[in-house]
């Protein structure tokens, strides 16, 4: 057993209102530099939709992630043999058209326009060429099913549906959508790290955050092609790849990452878990439908004495183990089992989990009139507006059982709360719902509290980074204090 600590995340999709505050927070902090205009380390997608970059989930085109024949595990995008013929151009690299051409507006037009009958307008200007452009696409052009005939209909996850189901889904009165905020998943088995020919990408030992060393990056961009979530970006200005750093400078000072901190709906949870790194390669070769359970199985119970012993042996500090005991991630993923990984069939084992949205039917259209007095207060989760197959493909690699379990438990919690707060649901009904959902009153209460009432410290259990101890490992802290200054670090630039 090789016990390691990993920072993980849970996004509660039932609470996401798609406001993009997270994206803006991230943009303002990290990607407002030249060369990063098109980058959105955090973005919010509307599902069904094609996302950003367009159709990133289509691994037939982008060749991200891993593939296995049960014996060996291979990157889809490259290999030792293929890296030579493709050395100057990866054939599966997303192009600018797949992201979008970033633009701004010539605001000076507003002041310099001659007097006329109409309001002056600011002409959109490409941030790549500086010339006026006709805006064709943006990072969230399909927001709220915008242009759904083009974008939503081309969602790669719709492959799981029959043609009839697809038509039903897009029938005008049945249109359904939800939001999927995405950041780097800081995977346990990151394809980007494996693909880098320069060894520039690495997974931090203390918390598993995946980073790009800006000094070692040599612009091969193998990481961009290899990441199935397309969350590594190439900065054309510095000639280096960049990605979400999970705001590690904030984490190291006990603050939540910018996107977490700014989240209006408080949908984001962060905490560390202990996992068994020894079993990673073994579980990465399992068939698709076993992956969700396999990933859960390598997350280790921080109360188990054997695990604690293993953690201590690997130099994990007591405070980090303690933080893992209080982690919301542990509860959502392992105890309640209501958070699921996105597209685990890419076999990178993402450490960002989603609580799937319920999307219940709230009203029907009867003879042109909206009828909302439904027989049952909460509709059967089986009859949710989004087909189970669709959600199963997105969150459980087609293993819909895991998804049903998560949805049912969430619904049971609602029914139990309705009984307690409004009282129009009998105790028997509530108990039956809880029993069917493999849930108890205590568990329902805990889920309710962490979902609806959680404050900052409940949502973000940030393991202490122990920077002072990290320095101690290398040199005398007093000496470090007297010699450390602003340093001589250069900004990343092109070239070796």
């Amino acid at each position, binding site marked *: 057993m090789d016990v390691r600590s990993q920072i993980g995340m849970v996004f509660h999709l039932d609470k996401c209102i798609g406001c993009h505050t997270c994206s803006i927070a991230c943009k303002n902090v990290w990607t407002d530099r030249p060369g990063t205009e098109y980058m959105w380390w955090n973005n919010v997608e509307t599902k069904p939709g*094609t996302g950003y*970059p*367009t*159709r990133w989930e*289509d691994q037939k*085109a*982008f*060749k991200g992630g891993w593939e296995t024949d049960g014996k060996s595990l291979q990157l889809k995008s490259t290999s030792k043999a293929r890296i030579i*013929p493709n050395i100057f151009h990866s*054939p*599966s*690299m*997303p*192009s600018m*058209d*797949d992201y979008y051409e970033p633009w701004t507006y010539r605001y000076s037009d507003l002041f310099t326009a001659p007097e006329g009958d109409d309001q002056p307008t600011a002409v959109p200007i490409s941030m790549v060429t500086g010339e006026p452009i006709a805006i*064709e*696409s943006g990072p969230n052009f399909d927001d709220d099913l915008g242009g759904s*005939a*083009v*974008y939503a*209909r*081309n969602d790669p996850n719709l492959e799981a549906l029959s043609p009839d189901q697809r038509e039903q889904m897009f029938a005008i009165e049945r249109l359904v959508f939800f939001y999927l905020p995405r950041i780097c998943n800081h995977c346990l088995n990151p394809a980007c790290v494996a693909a880098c020919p320069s060894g520039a990408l690495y997974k931090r030992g203390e918390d598993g955050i995946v980073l790009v060393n800006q000094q070692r990056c040599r612009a091969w961009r193998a990481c961009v092609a290899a990441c199935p979530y397309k969350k590594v970006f190439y900065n054309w200005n510095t000639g280096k790849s960049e990605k979400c750093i999970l705001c590690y400078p904030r984490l190291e000072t006990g603050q939540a990452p910018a996107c977490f901190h700014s989240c209006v709906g408080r949908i984001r949870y962060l905490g560390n878990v202990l996992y068994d790194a020894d079993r990673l390669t073994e579980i990465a070769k399992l068939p698709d439908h076993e992956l969700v359970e396999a990933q859960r199985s390598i997350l280790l119970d921080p109360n188990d004495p054997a695990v604690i012993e293993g953690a201590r042996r690997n130099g994990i500090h007591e405070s980090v183990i303690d933080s893992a005991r209080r982690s919301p991630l542990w509860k959502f993923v392992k105890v309640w089992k209501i958070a699921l990984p996105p597209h685990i069939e890419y076999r990178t084992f993402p450490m960002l989990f989603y609580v799937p949205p319920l999307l219940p039917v709230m009203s029907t259209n009867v003879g042109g009139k909206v009828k909302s007095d439904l027989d049952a207060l909460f509709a059967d989760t089986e009859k949710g507006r989004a087909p189970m197959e669709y959600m199963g493909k997105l969150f459980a690699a087609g293993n819909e059982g895991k998804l049903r379990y998560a949805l049912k438990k969430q619904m049971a919690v609602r029914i139990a709360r309705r009984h307690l707060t409004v009282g129009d649901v009998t105790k028997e009904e509530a108990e039956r719902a809880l029993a069917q959902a493999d849930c108890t009153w205590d568990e329902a209460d805990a889920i309710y509290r962490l979902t609806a009432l959680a404050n900052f410290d409940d949502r973000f259990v940030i393991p202490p980074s122990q920077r002072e101890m990290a320095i101690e490992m290398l040199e005398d802290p007093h000496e470090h204090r007297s010699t450390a200054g602003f340093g001589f670090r250069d900004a990343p630039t092109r070239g070796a």
Partner: protein
Amino acid sequence: MLHCRLGAATAVRGTSVALRWAMRTRTSLARIGLVGALAFAAPGLVAEALAQDVAVTEPVSEETLAYFKTNCTSCHTIGGGALAGPDLKDVTKRRTREQLTKYIQDPKAAIDSGDAYWVKLWNDARGVYMPTPPGITPDRIAKILALVDAESALPKSRFAGMTMSDRALTPADVERGRRLFEGADAMKLGAPACIGCHTVEGVGGFGGGRLGPDLTDAFSRLGGRKSVGAWLTSPQSPTMAPVFANAALADDEILSLVAYLQDRSLVAGGRAAGGAGIFEYLAAGVGGLAALLALFDFFWRGRHTSVRRAMVEASRR
């Protein structure tokens, strides 16, 4: 050395005495002194002094022999008839030592000065100027002329002609020559294959190299078997000389190459090889690039192309 300098600085007569002394001593120290003396004295006077005094009495040294062999025999014989350059037998009787010294020091200047004799020789050589021999000095010229005089006096000079076999050339020689020319067979002593710098009629593909001249008519241009053989024994052009100085051609290789060049000359009937011109190269480059791109396009046919635009266009149809 001090003695020499003083002699050179005081009187011409003194210089020639010093020179004589220096030559006799045959020590390198004395020779260095000689060079110093020459540098101080007026060149014309020194040349005269050399011509009158030294040549007659000076025995031929090994060094002069070697110099003559390396630098002169590829174009000249002594009593063997003309090769690329004229026969040198009794040359000192045809021209004065002064004229010869002047000529050898700078053949081009002598010819360009309009002297009828030199111009005639130049015309005989089909307008090829004799190259200035490397490291030539009036002293060396005097010694060479002495050598030529000595050899001319003999009934048969050892420089009467090449020692190359004069047996009849066979098609087998031609074939071997072709293989040597094209580099299919390596030269025994490490000399490079001709095709690296030269082309000739009948070399396939884009022809041979373009650094040196087309050799199709070299056989007739140089004036036959003997001259070509002499040239190949020790090539004299500024480009070839350093290359072949340390890697000479073997005698049998020379014979084969002569056979091949003769054969080429006959086949072509005097016209140049032609071969590929700049447009052929350009066409081959453009065509090759197009073929390469087509190949890349085929191998990478599964590459990722723009997704979104295709999606939007499909929805408009």
